[in-house]
């Protein structure tokens, strides 16, 4: 193999090692809900979906979310919801939450955790999505 090709091969190996090393830094830390909510800099609660209100769907909704080192939400999964419409509304709202950047020893870390919401319809028939008592 001629020298230029050998050098290019070396360069490619180095590039791959960098990519692998970068992959190693994408560490995920599991944090409890209090920690997740403490880190949130922008929180949006969804409007209660009209269809769910008519069906009188209410109860607890729990989502698992993950955000990256910059505080941007990268995934939201509904673990439990009174119905899929509420689950969808909460997912869309949580996708717009932002968080304070997180790092360990200067390396950005992804944070994963759960968020709980309560979907209630009051005596006047008005639906609301609320945070748990301790976070209101």
């Amino acid at each position, binding site marked *: 193999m001629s020298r230029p090709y050998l*050098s290019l091969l070396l*360069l490619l190996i180095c590039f791959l*090692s960098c990519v*692998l090393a970068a992959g190693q*830094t994408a*560490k995920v830390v599991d944090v409890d809900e209090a920690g997740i909510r403490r880190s949130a800099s922008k929180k949006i609660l969804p409007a209660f979906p009209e269809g769910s209100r008519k069906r009188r769907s209410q109860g*607890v909704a729990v989502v698992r979310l993950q955000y990256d080192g910059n505080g941007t939400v990268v995934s939201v999964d509904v673990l439990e919801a009174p119905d899929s419409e509420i689950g969808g509304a909460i997912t869309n709202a949580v996708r717009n939450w932002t968080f304070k950047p997180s790092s360990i*020893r200067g390396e950005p870390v992804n944070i994963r955790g759960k968020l709980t919401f309560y979907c209630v319809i009051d005596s006047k028939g008005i639906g609301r999505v609320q945070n*748990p008592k301790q*976070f209101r």
Partner: protein
Amino acid sequence: MPEISVSKLVLRLLNIGIITLAILLTGLGVRRYRVAQLTSRSQLPAYFKAGARFPVNELDWTKSFQTLVIVLEQSCAICSDNAPFYRLIEQNRPDRGRTRLVVLLGGDPDKATAYLENLQLSFDQVKPVSLRDLKPYGLVGTPTAVLVNDEGIVTNMWSGSLTELQQSEVLRALQIRVDSAALKTLPSSTPPLDLIDETGIQRLKEAGETVMVVDLRDRGEYSASHLAGAKNIPIDELAVRAVNELQISDVIVLFAGETPGKTYTAAAQMLSNNGFKRLRVLKTSKP
């Protein structure tokens, strides 16, 4: 001197350039990889780390040779779970002048005393803190135990639930000698829970009590099979959901399936800290 054509010279310089760049990138890659490895091994946060100055200033480090600072949060189940180990340290430390015990406690300051009394913990100093304020200094969670020398410099640190090996390490660092069997037989942080079977539940209901069976398993296990009427609150959601969904006046029957061990302890401690005193454990491992 042999003649070298311009094109060969350019090629040679290009090769040298590429090899230099390759070496630099390899170095960078290895460095990043090592940092990532170190991080994943220790999980030590940036300022809460050995060699750094401890970020809370209002503590007097000169009162003893070293200080063990334990960062706890009132709603943290693992913190309660580690309480027997902290008691062991408190009871076996040879000399207060050598090692002081300080707790930084997150949560409602008005409930701090009751929380520590409930866990039967006694420290030389208790300082209520806002964990939100400590986060920028790299505190990733509770409990965190930090050993600080008399100059306020962190010399060692342990985060999360401690394995037996880590507990031995803490004791060694504090120069506390205890029988290794003592670690294996650490008492539970909560009083023993009464067992109850389905007949017992039925009897309570007949007597007019409201009984709530709380299934602490994950959703998959709960969906596969569960006791009729049981409410599924996975253990990692209990701290948030209990005060929103359970009534203090009810009899709460806990069920955690086949691997209860610490789950019952953690759940009972958490519920007990939030005022739920009428706790039982379902006397079966299968729903």
